[in-house]
């Protein structure tokens, strides 16, 4: 059975009024190969985001995958502090390595272009995999449900 562990990624946070000592954010991030039928995969970092309704990627990635967004069904999404974002959907293959590979009906939105990250959310990912966040050990595990 496919099961893998990935380390949390430590990201230093700068000094600010709210955090005068700075700090470190620990993010559950892994690399993933993203592809569409018949296409060449592109590889980028993805965040495991339990608060995301589904899997989302930067709109720029849709262009790198040579998707024609004008022909894709669309919906509107919203995140913290963001205006609503038009999101274009299609089926994609997502491969995290270590035997963790699946397909999902995923969206592409300009709202993620500034971060250049993908989000693995409830529909498509958490509905297929059991994920254990072991923050104290700075790792998370992914296992087929």
């Amino acid at each position: 059975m496919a099961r893998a562990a990935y380390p949390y990624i430590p990201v230093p946070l700068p000094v600010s009024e709210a955090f005068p000592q700075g700090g470190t954010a620990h993010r559950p991030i892994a690399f993933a190969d993203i592809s569409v039928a018949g296409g060449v995969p592109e590889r980028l970092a993805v965040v495991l985001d339990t608060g995301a309704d589904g899997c989302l990627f930067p709109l720029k990635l849709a262009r790198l995958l040579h998707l024609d967004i004008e022909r894709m069904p669309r919906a509107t999404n919203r995140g913290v502090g963001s205006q609503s974002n038009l999101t274009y959907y299609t089926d994609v293959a997502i491969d995290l390595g270590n035997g963790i590979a699946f397909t999902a009906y995923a969206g592409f939105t300009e709202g993620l272009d500034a971060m250049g990250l993908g989000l693995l959310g409830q529909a498509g990912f958490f509905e297929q995999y059991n994920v254990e966040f072991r923050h104290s050990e700075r790792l998370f595990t992914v296992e087929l449900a």
Partner: protein
Amino acid sequence: MDTVAVSPVAEMYALMEGLPIGSWTAFSEKQHKILAYGPDAQAVLDEARELGEPRPVIARVMDPSVGLFL
């Protein structure tokens, strides 16, 4: 269970420090370096592939002064 002991993700983000915020970058896990960066993601990937990396990781340099709440 397979465990990734040394994270290439962490290595990539460490190497991105100091690059222009908003740049797209292409990282090589095998060569352990950022092969290209710039404003055009496709051009960055093309340059990385020309430099011998068939599977570059595309990423964007984020503003380190901004927290991430998704």
